[in-house]
């Protein structure tokens, strides 16, 4: 599934008269079966964009179309073909692991036996076999992350939207999860749109990196990542990786400074 974002602008009423423009005229076509990263400083609207694509927020202006390249004339409503993995995970604390993972199927009306069967196999594949009856509160951060991933994967939707899913993890767990995600991508060939502010993560995972400006969020540049697949951690030390990193770093550095200045001003204004 392609995701075609056309001139999307997202504005919120701000303090005073000026609206806060989170996104401005964002246009990009995310190609099917590609792993795309949105890389940018805090507040640049990347989380908002991903929620707009997922049909969970409405854009102030502009349009998002989900298009099957084989049948481009068929309209697809937002949300049905995509699934989100949240920055805050949003696991249901009162449900155990298997009921969390099977939630989407339960909402669809899939009978218990079947949905538990599918949930169990997915839980095993993310390495949580034996923890089906645990509550999220009993699990470590990395384990909860995997539950969230399983809950998304079980839906078997062609598009996966991930909003800084590994941000809260410690460095080692993060590496494990990144490898996990690469494996999933290789196996399922989904269209993945992944939000991050970590440059190495973006280069390691993605086929293309959309570098965004500070607020109002626009596309600064799109970098192509030509590293071969399957990716591996060792590539981090390669020359190609280093070159990309330099490029991305220079692009983003300016925007990060701007973003920090914006935040400082916001604090000043609220005093």
């Amino acid at each position: 599934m392609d995701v075609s974002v056309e001139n999307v602008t997202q504005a919120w009423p701000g303090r005073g008269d000026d609206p806060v423009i989170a996104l401005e005229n964002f246009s990009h076509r995310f190609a099917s079966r590609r792993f795309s990263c949105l890389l940018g400083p805090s507040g640049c609207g990347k989380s908002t964009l991903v929620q707009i694509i997922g049909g969970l927020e409405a854009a102030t202006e502009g349009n998002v179309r989900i298009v099957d390249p084989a049948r481009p004339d068929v309209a697809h409503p937002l949300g049905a073909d995509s699934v989100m993995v949240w920055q805050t995970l949003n696991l249901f604390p009162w449900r155990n692991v298997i009921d969390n993972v099977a939630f989407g199927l339960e909402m669809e009306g899939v009978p218990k036996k079947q949905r538990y069967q599918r949930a169990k196999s997915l839980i095993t594949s993310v390495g949580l076999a034996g923890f089906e009856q645990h509550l999220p509160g009993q699990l470590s951060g990395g384990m909860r992350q995997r539950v969230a991933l399983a809950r998304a994967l079980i839906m078997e939707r062609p598009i996966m939207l991930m909003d800084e899913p590994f941000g809260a993890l410690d460095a080692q767990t993060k590496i494990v999860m990144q490898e996990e995600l690469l494996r999933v991508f290789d196996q399922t060939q989904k269209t993945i749109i992944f939000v991050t502010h970590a440059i190495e993560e973006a280069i390691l995972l993605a086929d293309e990196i959309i570098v965004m400006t500070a607020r109002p969020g626009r596309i600064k540049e799109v970098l192509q990542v030509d590293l071969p697949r399957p990716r591996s951690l060792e590539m981090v030390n390669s020359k190609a990786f280093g070159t990309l990193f330099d490029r991305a770093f220079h692009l983003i550095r300016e925007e990060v400074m701007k973003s920090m200045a914006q935040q400082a001003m916001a604090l000043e204004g609220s005093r």
Partner: protein
Amino acid sequence: MAEGATPTAIILAVLLAWELFVRWRGIAPIYLPPPSTILVYLFRMIGNGSIEYNLGVTLLRIFAGFAIAAFAGVTLGVLMGMSRLIARVVDPWIAALYPLPKIALIPLLVIWLGTGELYKIVISAVTAFFPIVISTYAGIRQTDRGLIKAAEDLGASRRQIQLKVVIPAAIPSIFAGLHLGMGVTVILIVAAEMIGSSSQSGMGFLLIQAGQVMETEKVFASLVVLAIVGALIIKLQQWIDRKVAPWTAYRDGH
């Protein structure tokens, strides 16, 4: 083991100090009886069935009043949370009546209902109702938006979100309201039992009657019983909470 030992030792030390102080200073038992005498009276009251009867009656009233308040409060709180219309209609009444100390309603209720069982249960149910309905409503309205969005993303309908996300998410808030409700139920029942000339039973009645004839030992004995029972009720409620909602024991459950 050591954890329980120190507080217990301190309690015993206080009781001992109390005992010695009263005897040494020759304080009349009518003002401050020593713990040993209180214990004697307590056992006597247990022996002649007085505690069993009055405590039983008080407990029945407490649970009756609480059950009514809990059922009405949670139901209305959920309805208010689900329907803007109901919330807008009901809210001014709650806002107006909640700050009124319900003890002030006692004279009115006595005129309407006399001083029998009904009046006692009504006054406690009315008082407990408010914290329960308010906490329930708040719990429903303050559902974590992230959970709702996640459910929506996974294909849940509005109905499904209400039943499968909003209500379970409100449980900690509802439980907090039920704790408050139970607390005020106990207070109001005992208070109601102390007022009024007819229908003489219950721990509150024991207290006021002992007070009127200056049997201070009996007053203390009744207070001890009430304190212990109150603590047991709290522990029971906490146990029920953990059984019904095990996830609330963990911080940062999601």
